């Protein structure tokens, strides 16, 4: 257990080092932009991974929470003049309460029925954002003012990179700690067999609700940061395809692996940029890559790579 924990700390340190060193390889601001989007997607995926990978509950509606966070920030700062951080906090609290309110009836459902319910909730959010033009700007979206932290106006790709990177490291650290806490152990028990976990005296519903709320809040905060970083937000962020994209990132990177979620987000955010090389064939290639990875690494990239590395290494006596 102790070794496991230290390995995780090592992972966090390694991630921090990568994040710190990356800008050295960035020739211009465009790379920062992709990195910022990666970090913010990764935060959503880290939260979603707690739900999918650890609690074994799927959600096809997290883009709804992401967009709600983004629009809360956009609307409260642009239309009501709230300070950015307060708006972000209000969005997170609002989304948390919403998630809490719907969690119980939703999480009673299992498997694909749960997928359907979360998908429906996400789509409802998307439709409402699309229709309430007076408040949200409708399908064309709305401009979001710059974020002020104290007296500092966060603007420019470099500044945003450090903000997003800091938020990402914080999210990873939180996630690793959650996994090692009572909550994490309860969740793993629940993933194995919910009834067995109940028999062992774990209040499974409470934990499921808790992790659902946590993952929704992660998504909301990432959405708020995204809205400010882009300076613009559209209802596409709430869409069904965006939700699918988040889940795909989690599964591709590796379920039940926080770093897997980060890797999945990084790959699927950067891939469309690399695939422009293939012009008309880019969707074909993207589909083939997804299928290929899932066939040959059914547990996702990070766990599969970690496993084969362990196999390569000579066995270490257990400490």
């Amino acid at each position, binding site marked *: 257990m102790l070794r496991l924990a230290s390995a995780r700390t090592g992972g966090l340190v390694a991630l921090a080092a990568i994040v710190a060193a990356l800008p050295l390889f960035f020739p211009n601001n465009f790379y920062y932009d992709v990195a910022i989007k990666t970090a913010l997607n990764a935060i959503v995926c880290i939260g979603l991974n707690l739900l999918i990978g650890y609690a074994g509950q799927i959600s096809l509606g997290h883009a709804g929470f992401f967009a709600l966070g983004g629009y809360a920030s956009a609307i409260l700062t642009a239309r009501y003049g709230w300070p950015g951080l307060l708006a972000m906090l209000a969005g997170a609290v609002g989304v948390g309460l919403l998630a809490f309110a719907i969690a119980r009836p939703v999480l009673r459902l299992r498997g694909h029925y749960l997928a359907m319910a979360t998908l429906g909730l996400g789509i409802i959010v998307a439709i409402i954002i699309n229709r309430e033009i007076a408040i949200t700007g409708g399908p064309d979206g709305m401009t979001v003012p710059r974020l002020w932290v104290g007296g500092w106006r966060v603007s420019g790709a470099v500044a945003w990179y450090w903000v997003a990177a800091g938020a990402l490291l914080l999210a990873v650290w939180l996630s690793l700690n959650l996994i090692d806490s009572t909550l994490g152990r309860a969740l793993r028990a629940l993933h194995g067999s919910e009834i067995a976990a109940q028999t062992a005296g774990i209040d499974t519903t409470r934990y499921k609700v808790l992790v659902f709320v946590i993952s929704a809040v992660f998504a909301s905060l990432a959405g708020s940061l995204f809205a400010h970083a882009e300076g613009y937000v559209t209802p596409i962020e709430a869409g069904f395809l965006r939700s699918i994209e988040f889940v795909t990132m989690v599964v591709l990177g590796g379920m039940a692996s926080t770093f897997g979620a980060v890797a999945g987000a990084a790959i699927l955010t950067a891939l469309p940029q690399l695939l422009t090389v293939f012009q008309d064939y880019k969707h074909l290639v993207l589909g083939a890559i997804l299928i290929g990875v899932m066939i040959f690494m059914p*547990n996702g990239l990070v766990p599969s790579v970690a496993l084969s590395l362990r196999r390569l290494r000579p066995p270490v006596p257990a400490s």
Partner: protein
Amino acid sequence: MTKSAAVRHAELGTASVAEFLQFLFSGITVGAIYALVGVGFAIIYSASNVINFAQGEFVMLGGMATMFLLSGGEPLWLAALLAIVITAAIGLALNKFAVEPAAHRRGGGASVVTLIIITIGASIFIRGAAEVLLGKDSHRLPAFSGDQPIDIFGAKLDPQVLWVLGALALAVVGLRWFFARTRLGKAMLATSCNRLAAELVGIDVRMILLASFGLSAALGALAGILTAPITLTRYDIGIMLGLKGFCAAILGGLGSPFGAVAGGLLLGIAEAMAAGYLSSAYKDVVAFVIILAVLFLAPGGLFGAKATERV
């Protein structure tokens, strides 16, 4: 906006029956399409517990391939038949080369979520291939029996809808016969109930999976061909049809083709009634609220088996 429904009805008393019928027909038109797509989801789910997110692409392929063959000079019936065969072959290939290698890996098969991502990858791949090979334009197949609508009490029904409903009825009867009377059908049912037990009694589970993909791809293609005169067809129409078909299958209770039919019709009629009597801008919200309400009250869908969880 407009006058309230009540005022309008007072003015147009006799028209309101025709109006209601027209909304109903509109609902049936759309619902029958959802239902036919939903049945495909249900078949694969029955056999493998996998939600095939590429089901919508089968529907697209049916319509697009028929269009392509038609423009190559084939008669409609032959083009349609070939399109169904081609799509079924693609369904078999999807199973053989993407789903099966993952599901039957040495050292434990992939989880259901992994299989879902594979089908998502497949849908992107198929859509990408169609985009390159068949182009990005939207096309319309000619209606099978003309565009002249049928007048019923002042409401108009697209004759093409009768083709869709007929196919739906045939599919339901055919599937019922298939599951109750044929060896393959019974084996499929057995596999869906308990896979291990099915294997133990000598059922070739791989074969069953393969057959389920072929069958649902063929049905999807048929749906695509029959509905193309109504919905038009395009390389990316599968996203929307897949989503609505999935909703239909879930609403009816997964794994039950008959449930999917009921679910699809219910969904279509709910959308049309919401658009007609409440607000066309919020009709999809109404449809999803109904789905959520049904799921909260009956967590296994309308006609889903009350499954007991294995411990």
